[in-house]
């Protein structure tokens, strides 16, 4: 996971969840971020797809258990597309 993908994902999550970016870590998850409910999860999925030009399958979405996992997923999809 490169720093830049993680940072970009973190910035998107900061916007969506309304939490300062420096408070978000790879371990941030629905358990630790109060506003991360199912509707915000959908918003996060849409924002990630929009930002990185990737398409997430239902199975991918289930794996998005914390921010680190989201960033790893984005990298995997991007390198598969290359």
């Amino acid at each position, binding site marked *: 996971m490169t720093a830049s993908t993680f940072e970009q994902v973190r910035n998107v999550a900061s916007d969506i969840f309304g939490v300062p970016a420096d408070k978000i870590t790879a371990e941030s998850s629905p358990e630790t971020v109060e506003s991360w409910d199912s*509707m915000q999860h*959908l918003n996060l999925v849409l924002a990630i797809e*929009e*930002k990185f030009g990737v398409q997430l399958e239902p199975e991918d979405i289930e794996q998005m258990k914390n921010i680190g996992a989201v960033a790893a997923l984005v990298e995997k999809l991007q390198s598969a597309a290359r």
Partner: protein
Amino acid sequence: MSDSTSISTPADHNPSSLRAEIDRLIAEGALDLATRRLAELWRRDPASGTASFVISRLDGLLEKTPERPALTKFKLAILRSFTVEPIVPLLRAEAFAYGIDLEVHLGDFNTYVQEVLDGGSSLYRFAPNVVVLAVRTDQAAPELWRDFADLVPEAAQQAGGRVVHGYEQWIGAFRKHCQASLIIHSLERPASPSLGVLDDQSEAGQSGLIRQINRELRRIAVEFQGVYILDYDALVARHGSEHFHDERKWLTARLPIAAGYVLPMAREWMRFIVPLSGRTAKVLVVDLDNTLWGGVIGEDGMAGIKVGPEYPGAAYQALQRALLDLSRKGILLAVCSKNNLDDAMEALEKHPGMLVRAKHFAAMRVNWTDKAQNLREIAQELNVGIDALAFLDDNPFEREQVRAALPEVTVINLPKNPLEYASAVRNCAAFERLTLSAEDQQRTEMYAAQKQRSGAEQNFQSKEDFFRHLEQEAELEPVSDLTLARVAQLTQKTNQFNLTTRRYTEPQIAEMAKQPGWRISSIKVRDRFGDHGLVGVAIAHDEGEQCEVDTFLLSCRVIGRTVETALLAHLAESAALRGRKRLVGWFLPTKKNAPARDFYEQHGFERQATNGGGSLWALDLKSSTLHCPDWIKLKVSVGSRIAETTPGGKN
């Protein structure tokens, strides 16, 4: 805020440093600048994440100062058969960019029928200005969508009839309970019909029947006031069904729209919300060099500039066609260019590739002064507010300068590629209109006649001589089905000569006209130079011994030519004839209606009361000497009124 130090060019910020700057500005209390930077952020990066940021900061700003003067409050309810929650932040951010503070109420999933039919539902308690009925074919016409191949032709036809009948009933019920505007999504056709290419060989196929339902929906919408069709089928087609839809999201989250098309959906709604909220532009001010044509006329000359039927000149012709279409909708065109007047006029008058000519422009500023100052003068010359201007310029620096000095101007975000200019203009919601009056279609000619009038005025010794020379004829009549749209439009758009600035929709006007004791009069004016059309509205109601003026307004085109006196005199005389003793009315000041401030006082009214909101004036009808000026030929007709029942509402 016109200091040039606060101008930032797009290169100054990346989106995350812009976010930090916005938070710093809010913390420092520089709220106007923070508001402007928020709009800039949205313009630069209109995405889902940005929308959440913009909305959270905007809500914070609104909490500090609930009445942001530059924002129009507007309430939207969405009744839906699918997940729209992720669209809402984008919609609110986009509305904010158009100067609208949009409050959104969402109906529950697929409960739109109950919500519409139940007069006490949360929908009606929300008191929306506008309601969107966003229902997809799979929900509105399930038989036609899923099991079409099972249906015999008669059954399919009947199913289509039931769908139409259902809509007709909901719309009728909606109108009984609510006067908000209603926007109905048309039904989309399936990307892959059940029977493949066979489907298209008959009008009674799956696609054919859905098309037929859409035609019927359009017919029903026309029969009701304030009901409009959003062509969802065409929206999907424009973007391509296979891109627009996302089956994964539909099956897992009931969101049928792919991530990249959530913003286009929001923008399609805005094309209705902007005109309904009155945040439209009345004048488009265009630059010349590299905007109306390619190249610089002062350097490249007539032979060097690019405009014509071939590429690259064709891109500029496409833009010019878009401009002419706007002028046919009643939007005035004006020029603001840093150029030598002779050079500019030669190109405008003589270049063979030009479609737009000097006669299409209601005002021109071709000079070397700064553009903000020129825009102020154009607004003044055309008698419109600064917020009625839109600005089209290829130069990002000029755009930023105008945004900084005149934040209320709609600045069009022109793409770098001239091939995209025309669609940037066509897609700007500030130019959308939902109704078109005869006045709108002739506005450019009317302004040309106005220029002649101003010339004539200077040759007369006294105002009275000039008024006599004008040979004005005015026609007064009660509002009718024919004039309803224009009357409502005037209440929504008139800012300057408007005593109470009460905004009404068509259904509200129609409802008022039916109330006993209420009178809604319109006035049309003609003079020797041309026809102004319907330019004034007065709404008054009898209360005991007095007649109270609810609304009194006049289009800025005819202010100061004593038409206002004629209209007021008519109110006074007819109230006296009905045995009223007093004519009373409020003046409610706004930022813009100073031209109407002394109106009652100048016509012999006496001030009765003043409170924080305004002043109440009264005229004793027994001692009144108010009458129509003898240089205006006044015709009062009884005219037809509003139809008693709303068509289609009876079943």
